[in-house]
């Protein structure tokens, strides 16, 4: 089923003028209401009137996470807080979260985009949707929830954690659709095996997975272990949350971008010049209709390419290839964004600890694991075991406190962390994604 047939199957000749009109309106409104954006545009001598074609978008300056951080918390909102009905936030590079806001209309739009996403995955109002995305500041849980309710499905707001209980609920309520991160889906599959629950005890037929990169082989594993069709979705809080792009169940290859609301570009990750259609580069989005928190040319740091061939499902939106990597050092651990600089921030805030560390990420069983190796300097060294163990616990606790991700700490000898060309290799990612 196509949720919004009028827009999702719109001929390109009609879609592009709509995008241009919306882009012009959005740029004019942002220029008028956000001093920060206005200053950035004035700096490069661009005014809203200069946007005459869609290609003129490359006259506009980019927006990055750094811009969001500088304007923490509400500096980039275009409406007064009394018109904002919801706030979400995700972790930032220095411990400061990135904050996004939604008006009533934004929430309705978001719900519709998630309904489109779920419908593309093959879900309907007859489904029982088990939502294991985390509810809270993270956009995943509530974004998916509103979309599923809007679809008319029966929603089970399970949120994350307590896998055994989740499986019992899925079995007893006969859930047909699972929403979660792909790694959590595999964790559920393993817990099921431990409990002696087989896929035939459940009624699941589709899983809608996002919030972290995953491979085709992981898709095969999930589909086999849970006996479902696994669908990839894409979104980020800075754009709206989940609901930016979604695979159709007919093809399961390439994610249709909701182009009537988000304008995608692919740029060279070094020069930031626009790349021709089909070329691989950094994915950049401009929101076309968002009210409270629109963004212009937001650099996602995700690598992808746009696929323009017609799709069997009937949708005319271009598809983005499954995200394969990033242009920065952000790690996604169990769905949580982690920057090495955040770990560094924790370490240097502990007296005597030097920022000589290495992060080792792996996937054991189906869960991401993170181990942080920290060199022991003389300032923190003690001849007593309990003092070193207390130090290691303190680091572990502070990281968990800041990032919400648990990790193992290993104290290591000075200079034992590999240094390449004089610069330490901060991250070793052993996961095969």
């Amino acid at each position, binding site marked *: 089923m196509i949720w919004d047939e009028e827009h999702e199957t719109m001929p390109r000749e009609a879609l592009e003028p709509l995008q241009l009109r919306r882009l012009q309106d959005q740029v004019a409104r942002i220029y008028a209401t956000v001093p920060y954006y206005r200053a950035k545009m004035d700096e490069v001598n661009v005014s809203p009137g200069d946007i005459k074609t869609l290609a003129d978008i490359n006259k506009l300056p980019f927006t990055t996470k750094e811009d969001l951080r500088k304007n923490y918390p509400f500096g980039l909102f275009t409406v007064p807080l009394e018109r904002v009905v919801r706030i979400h936030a995700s972790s930032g590079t220095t411990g400061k979260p990135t904050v996004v806001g939604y008006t009533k209309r934004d929430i309705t739009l978001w719900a519709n985009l998630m309904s489109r996403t779920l419908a593309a995955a093959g879900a309907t109002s007859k489904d029982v949707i088990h939502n294991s995305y985390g509810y809270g500041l993270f956009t995943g849980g509530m974004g998916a929830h509103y979309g599923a309710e809007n679809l008319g499905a029966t929603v089970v707001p399970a949120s994350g954690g307590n896998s055994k209980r989740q499986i019992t609920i899925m079995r007893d309520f006969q859930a047909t659709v699972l929403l979660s991160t792909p790694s959590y889906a595999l964790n559920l599959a393993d817990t099921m095996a431990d409990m002696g629950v087989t896929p035939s005890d459940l009624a699941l037929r589709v899983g809608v997975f996002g919030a972290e990169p995953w491979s085709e082989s992981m898709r095969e594993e999930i589909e086999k272990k849970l006996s479902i069709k696994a669908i990839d979705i894409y979104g980020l809080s800075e754009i709206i949350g989940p609901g930016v792009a979604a695979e159709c169940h007919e093809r399961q290859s390439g994610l249709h971008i909701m182009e009537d609301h988000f304008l995608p570009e692919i740029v060279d990750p070094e020069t930031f010049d626009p790349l021709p259609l089909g070329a691989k580069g950094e994915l950049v989005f401009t929101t076309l209709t968002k009210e409270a928190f629109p963004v212009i040319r937001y650099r996602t740091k995700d690598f992808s390419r746009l696929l323009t061939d017609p799709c069997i499902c009937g949708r005319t939106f271009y598809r983005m290839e499954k995200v394969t990597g990033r242009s920065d050092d952000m790690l996604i651990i169990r769905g949580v964004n982690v920057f090495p600089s955040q770990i560094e921030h924790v370490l240097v805030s502990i007296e005597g600890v030097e920022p000589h560390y290495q992060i080792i990420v792996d996937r054991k069983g189906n869960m991401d694991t993170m181990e942080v190796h920290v060199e*022991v*300097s*003389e300032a923190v*060294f*003690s*001849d*007593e*075991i309990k003092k*070193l*163990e207390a130090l290691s616990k303190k680091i572990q606790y502070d990281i968990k406190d800041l990032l919400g991700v648990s990790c193992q700490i*290993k*104290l*290591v*000898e*000075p*200079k*034992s962390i590999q240094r390449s060309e004089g610069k330490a290799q901060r991250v070793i990612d052993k996961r095969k994604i």
Partner: protein
Amino acid sequence: MKVEQIAIFLENKSGRLAEITAILAQKGINIRAMSLADTADFGILRLIVNDTESACQALRNKGFTVGKTDVVVIEVSDKPGGLASVLEKIREGGLNIEYMYAFTQKSGETGLIIFRFDDIDAALKTLKNARVRILSGEEVYAI
């Protein structure tokens, strides 16, 4: 009456202990007493040597994390109950032992016990009052 002990941080990987003893051997440093405390991930080697300064210097130059601590070394008679009577006095004095290790002398008539107390000055006072024989640094380094 305090004796200097050096502590060295060790990752649990093969050959590290051999490396340390080789460094000390090369500098002509003699190990008087040692103990190794370990956890699943790391270990702490504690040594009393005849030349603390040179040993620290040599190990630091080779990149080891080294710390110096003061410990108390006492003599107990090498017969049943020798240690028990000293520990009883430590208990009576309300002293806290962080860790301890022992070694015997060549003569074999007395054993030496090394204590790491959380409050070394209080410990020295208690042991002195109890007439326990406390060895000086010079005596220990020269054993």
